[in-house]
Structures are given as structure tokens and as C-alpha cells.
């Protein structure tokens, strides 16, 4: 006979059995029994954030940088609703996360009790799965299943709503193995269909203009997937591009790397996507920011799509060879088959010559200085890269122009170093994500490349970094505008800057100091190097307020509603007005 434990103790025990080291959370009435159970143990480290939204993003940063699931603990009602943005963000970017929310006692559910909300109802569409636990005897199995679901197949967030009486009531606990879990219908595909893989290899080997398009799936599959990708890339000799989420899977220094694709991708990547004859899509999902105008998307190619999520296949673009499975495993099979059959790629010289003409446009070029004497934002990012890349830093970002500039100008050589909100595009992601990443990688240099508007969305988390002595660096590209919004207003709405000016900004240096951080201001190009050096020299958290050109816009760009071949390379091409059809596509 096993001894009975309280629901709260079962939770802690199950988290221990799952190997959880860090929980990001915030207490409240409906989780007090759990907080009491946390108080009595040492193994799990609880990180007290300043707002539950911060907890969810911190868990994302932890998960994406370590490959382990992030764990969040929040109270009922407002605690749960505050966490929703981060949960939705994790859903869109396929981040493994388990969120425990307190709930009012089961007899009170449905009575509009104090701090009650229908958490399973509200989170249903932004979670991979969710539970309301009414029986403490089922809690253990549910927690283990939640971790299994969050981390397997296409990863995602799982919410466990835990009423207060279930936390207090007792029941036996057993350590379950996955085969005994409640949902027998859940069996994610791992190995891809071999005939389809053969077909894919056959197509690739015959291609005259092959193109490999990778996404976040490769990162999610684990570092091994990036290694086999490199092998396949060598074997096939094909050029490679990636989505925002997949940066780092192939080293940016690889001669076969064409840079990111899509709306702010490189000219060569987008042109090659348009002109290729065989496209191999690996763990990406043909997002609208990637495809541009659909009816003009890569019109001449045979398309192979490898994805673990059957729902991603043929959702937006019809493909010729769908392969459902873990992209790492499928890549292994592809490499094996390629070698076993001793395939040789065709002569790809003509293709690479064409690519060279596109590369020669040098689409990411920027002036190192401008007449106004302002700092060129791309230059600031490049300087930051120069000063830090040898340390293989983890970079997080907020959302906006700075995010796109970081994606374009900060080169990544390995996976799990680039943490950004891609699918949901959540301003306020970067600082808490950096905190989570720093906790998961105590020795790493972690930098949030931020915008002055975005950083204010979760600025309260500076206190969290101070409390846990996390030496995160926040590098604000301060253009005094919601730059990305202003850019669209330039391009689409005749330069009418409706509410896109960042008025009444705080003094970021003094704000940093108020939180016990170091604050640095960089105002002129000649201060860049020293400012960055000072930031790196300080062993605590640092906020850098780097004043950059206010009116700079991010190029190249595929305007909304346009195809890959209609890129704007240079600001002078901007028309400033757009028809309704294009506006509706935004």
C-alpha cells in the first residue's frame, strides 16, 4: 500500500520525477498549498517573476535555450489570464511548456467565485492540450502525461488547472511510465514513410536547382537534427535558407547559407525559392510572412515537406511529397539512403552562378554612417556581433525592426542561441525570455536586443534579474518610434504616423540604476565600441540605451501582397500608398 500524499505534494513529487529544476511563478490564493509544498523542499528552484506574463515568456526562453520543457506556476483568475499571451506564444512557436494554474475549489467552480475564471475554456485554443483535475488520484498520471504531450510530437504548451481542494486532498501517487497514460489515442509520428523518403531523395538528386528551406522544427528536434542537416547540405550541395525560427540550424558561415527568407529575408534566398525546381522544406510551415503572395510562390518547383504535424502539410501550399515524422529522424534516413545509393548531385554550377548574381546585389548592405551623425541600427547590431560572437551568446529579441535587423545582421553558428517570438510576434518577449535562458545557461552571455517600445511591455522583470543575480544584457535600439509600425505607415498609409511615436520615454539609464542594474547610454557612433565593451565588462545585468537613427526602415522587404520576386531592396523604391487588397493582406 502506497502512502497517501496531498495533491500539492504529488505535484512537487511528479515535477521532481520529471527532472524539473526551475519553476517560474507567482503566488496567489488558489496556489497557496503548492507554494507551501515548495517551501518545504530544496530540489526545485522557484523563480518569482514580477508578472505572470513574464513567467510564461521566461519558461519559453528556458525551454528554447535548453531543449527542456519550461514550467510555470500561477494562481487562478488574473494569474492565469496574465499568462495567456506567453502560452499562446509557445503554441505558435511550438515551445514545450507545462503551466500549472490554481483554480477555486471544485464545489465553487461555475459559481463566479472570487478569482475564478474558466481557465480550460480560455486556454483551449492556445494550448496543445489542457486539463482540469478534479481527482487527486489522477493528478500524478496527468502531470506525467502533460510533460509527455508538451515535449513529444510537435511540442507545445499544456495547461493543468488545479482546484485548491485537489491540492489539499490526499491520494496515492505512483510514478507512471508513458505507456500507462490516459490518452491512448496520442501517438505522434516519429519515423517518416520510407517510400516517400526515397522519392524525396530521388527528386533531390535529380534537381538542377534544389533549395533547402528549414524552420523551427529542426531546432525543436534537438541539436542532433542540426548536425544531420549539415551533412545533407554537404551531400546535396544545395543552397539553404531558413525561417526566423530556424536560424542557427545551419551555421551562417556556411558557403551554402543564403540567409533568412520571407518578408525581411535576403534577395538571394527569396529569388532562389522562387526559381528552384525542387524544394525541400524541413520543419517549417509556409507561414504567410515567408511565402508572400501565394499564387506566385515558387511556381516551378516540386515540393517535399517534412513535418511532424500532419496539420501543417498541405495547409497553405500543396506539396508533391509529404513526409510526416520527426525532421531529425527523417534527415537521418535521407542521409543514410543518399550514401547507401551513392547518389551524386547534378552539376549545380549554373544554379550557383545564378545565385551569385543575386548575392551580388548585396541586399543587406547599409551605410556605416549617415549625414545626420545618428547611429545606423544595422551597424550597431554588427558591432554587437563582432564584440560577442566568439562567446556564442544567446540572443533574445523583442518585436519590431530591431528584431528583423538582428535576424539579418547577427550571424548564428549553432542552434538554441536565437530566441524570438516568431508566430505570435509578442512585444515584451525578449527580457523575460533572456531571464529564462540565463537560468538555464548560467555561464552563457545572454543579450536581449530590444526596441524602446517593446521593452516597456515587460520591463518589470528587471526586478527578477536583480533578485536572482542574473547578468542579462538588454541592448535597446532606441529610435523613439514603434519603428515597424511607422515603417508600415510610411509604406502603406502615406506617412501618417498615427500613434507610433514613443512619447514620454523613461530615462532608461536611471531606470536601470533604480533596479540595481548598470545603465549605459550610447548616443554617437564613436561611443558604440566602448559602450558595448562596458556592457560586457560588467558582471551584473546591464541596460544599454543605444540611440539610433529615428527614421531608418528595415529592408529588403517584400511588401504585403507581393511575390518573392517583387522585393523592395532600397528605401527609394517605396511608393507610400497601397490598394485595399494589399492592405487587407497585412
Amino acid at each position, binding site marked *: 500500500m502506497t502512502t497517501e500524499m496531498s495533491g500539492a505534494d504529488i505535484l512537487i513529487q511528479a515535477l521532481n520525477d520529471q527532472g524539473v529544476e526551475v519553476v517560474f511563478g507567482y503566488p496567489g490564493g488558489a496556489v497557496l498549498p503548492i507554494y507551501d509544498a515548495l517551501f518545504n523542499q530544496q530540489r526545485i528552484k522557484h523563480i518569482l517573476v514580477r508578472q505572470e506574463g513574464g513567467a510564461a515568456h521566461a519558461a519559453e526562453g528556458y525551454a528554447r535555450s535548453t531543449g527542456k520543457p519550461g514550467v510555470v506556476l500561477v494562481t487562478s483568475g488574473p494569474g492565469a489570464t496574465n499568462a495567456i499571451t506567453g502560452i499562446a506564444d509557445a503554441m505558435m512557436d511550438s515551445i514545450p511548456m507545462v503551466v500549472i494554474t490554481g483554480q477555486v475549489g471544485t464545489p465553487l467552480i461555475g459559481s463566479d467565485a472570487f478569482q475564478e475564471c474558466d481557465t*480550460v*475554456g480560455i486556454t*483551449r*485554443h492556445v494550448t*496543445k*492540450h489542457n486539463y*482540469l483535475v478534479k481527482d487527486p488520484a489522477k493528478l500524478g498520471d496527468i502531470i506525467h502525461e502533460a510533460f509527455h*504531450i508538451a515535449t513529444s510530437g510537435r511540442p507545445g504548451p499544456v495547461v493543468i488547472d488545479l482546484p485548491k481542494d485537489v491540492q489539499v486532498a490526499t491520494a496515492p501517487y505512483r510514478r507512471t511510465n508513458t505507456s500507462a497514460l*490516459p*490518452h*491512448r*489515442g*496520442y501517438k505522434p509520428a516519429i519515423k517518416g514513410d520510407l517510400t516517400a523518403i526515397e522519392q524525396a531523395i530521388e527528386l533531390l538528386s535529380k534537381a538542377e536547382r534544389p533549395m533547402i528551406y528549414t524552420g523551427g522544427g529542426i531546432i525543436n528536434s534537438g541539436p542532433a537534427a542540426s548536425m544531420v542537416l549539415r551533412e545533407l547540405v554537404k551531400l546535396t550541395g544545395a543552397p539553404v535558407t531558413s525561417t526566423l525560427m530556424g536560424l542557427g540550424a545551419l551555421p551562417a558561415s556556411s558557403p551554402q547559407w543564403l540567409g533568412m527568407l520571407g518578408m525581411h529575408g535576403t534577395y538571394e534566398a527569396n529569388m532562389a525559392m522562387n526559381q528552384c525546381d525542387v524544394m525541400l522544406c524541413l520543419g517549417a510551415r509556409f507561414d504567410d510572412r515567408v511565402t508572400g503572395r501565394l499564387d506566385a510562390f515558387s511556381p516551378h518547383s516540386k515540393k517535399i515537406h517534412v513535418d511532424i*504535424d*500532419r*496539420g501543417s*502539410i*498541405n*495547409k497553405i501550399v*500543396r506539396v508533391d511529397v509529404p513526409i510526416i515524422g520527426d525532421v531529425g529522424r527523417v534527415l537521418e534516413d535521407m542521409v543514410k539512403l543518399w550514401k547507401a545509393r551513392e547518389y551524386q548531385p547534378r552539376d549545380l554550377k549554373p544554379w550557383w552562378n545564378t545565385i551569385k548574381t543575386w548575392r551580388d546585389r548585396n541586399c543587406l548592405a547599409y551605410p556605416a554612417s549617415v549625414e545626420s551623425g545618428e547611429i545606423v541600427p544595422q551597424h550597431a547590431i554588427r558591432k554587437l556581433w563582432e564584440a560577442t560572437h566568439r562567446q556564442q551568446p544567446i540572443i533574445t529579441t523583442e518585436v519590431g525592426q530591431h528584431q528583423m535587423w538582428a535576424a539579418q545582421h547577427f550571424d548564428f553558428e549553432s542552434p538554441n542561441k536565437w530566441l524570438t517570438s516568431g508566430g505570435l510576434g509578442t512585444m515584451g518577449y525578449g527580457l523575460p525570455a533572456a531571464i529564462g535562458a540565463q537560468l538555464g545557461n548560467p555561464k552563457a552571455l545572454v543579450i536581449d536586443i530590444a526596441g524602446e517600445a517593446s521593452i516597456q511591455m515587460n520591463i518589470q522583470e528587471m526586478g527578477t534579474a536583480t533578485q536572482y543575480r542574473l547578468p542579462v544584457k538588454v541592448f535597446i535600439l532606441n529610435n523613439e518610434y514603434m519603428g515597424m509600425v511607422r515603417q508600415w505607415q510610411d509604406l502603406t498609409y502615406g506617412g501618417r504616423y498615427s500613434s507610433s511615436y514613443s512619447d514620454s520615454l523613461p530615462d532608461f539609464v536611471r531606470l536601470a540604476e533604480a533596479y540595481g542594474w548598470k545603465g549605459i547610454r550610447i548616443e554617437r557612433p564613436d561611443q558604440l565600441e566602448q559602450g558595448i565593451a562596458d556592457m560586457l565588462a560588467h558582471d551584473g545585468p546591464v541596460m544599454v540605451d543605444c540611440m539610433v537613427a529615428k527614421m531608418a526602415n528595415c529592408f529588403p522587404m517584400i511588401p504585403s501582397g507581393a511575390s518573392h520576386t517583387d522585393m523592395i531592396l532600397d528605401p527609394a523604391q517605396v511608393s507610400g500608398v497601397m490598394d*485595399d*487588397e494589399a492592405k*487587407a493582406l497585412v
Partner: protein
Amino acid sequence: MHIQQQETERHTLSVTVDNEAGVLARIAGMFTARGYNIDSLTVADVTEDDSISRITIVTTGTPAVIEQVVAQLDRLINVHRVIDLTERGNFVERELALVKVVGTGEHRIEALRLADVYRARVVDATTGSFVFEVTGSSEKIDKFIELMGEIGLVEVARTGVAAIARGKEAV
């Protein structure tokens, strides 16, 4: 600017799911969240231990949308299996309706005559009304209701479609 419409098809799907709280909300919610249509949905548990329910969904959409409906249903953790019966072909589809007709004299006699043709049974009668029970394909029931509309129809309750593949094989 105008929004364009595309050709759609009607498909009957059979979905087996874990019989637990919230499953229906998940399925119905998935349809609304992704903008798919539900024409009819029936659900009941079909196992002795009440562990599995069978849901029959009739949906309309473009072929690409139907393919996505199946894939998106399949992604739900509680869903065991999704079968597109229309895609497979060769299946039986039945629906039951209770139809209340009010009237006197000629109308009553005509109602009974039509009911006979449609093999509808009288399950309740008063001097001024009948309730008919009619089973069959949705089209047959549509037709029956349409006819009754001319002779005193006041109320209809329909079950929605239940469907199963023909032949020896079980899903």
C-alpha cells in the same frame, strides 16, 4: 474590395474520441476557431465501459479545407481516429426527425397519406395534431419536412446524421 467564394463539397466524417469532459467543446471550438462549417454533429458513447464516443460530423468546405478539417481533428489529443466516409465512399447515413403537424379535415388525411409514402410513424396524435417520426437520409427528411410545410407543419426536431461504412470491415 470583395471577398471571393469557392466551390464546396459536403463530407461526412466519423470521429472516435475519448469520452471525457470537454471533448465536444474542443471539437466544436476547433471548427469555429479555424472557420470551418459544421452542418450537423451527433455524439454518443459506443463502448460498454463508456470510454469511447463516436461523433459523426457533416461538414462542407473546399477539398483543401476538408483535408485540413481531418488533419486538425486528428491533432487533438482526445481524438483516436478520423475517417472521411465520403472520401472512402460506400457508407450508410441516417437521420431521424420528429415532425409536428397541426390541422383538421383534408390536411390531416393528406398528412397521413404522405407519412405513409415516407414511412413515417405516428408517435403522438390529438384531434388537432400529429407527431411523425421519420428516418432516412437527410435529403429524404428535408423533402418530407418541405411537404409538411404546406399542410400544417409547426415544429421539427432532428437528430443530425449518424453514419457507418458498408460491408464487413469495422473502423
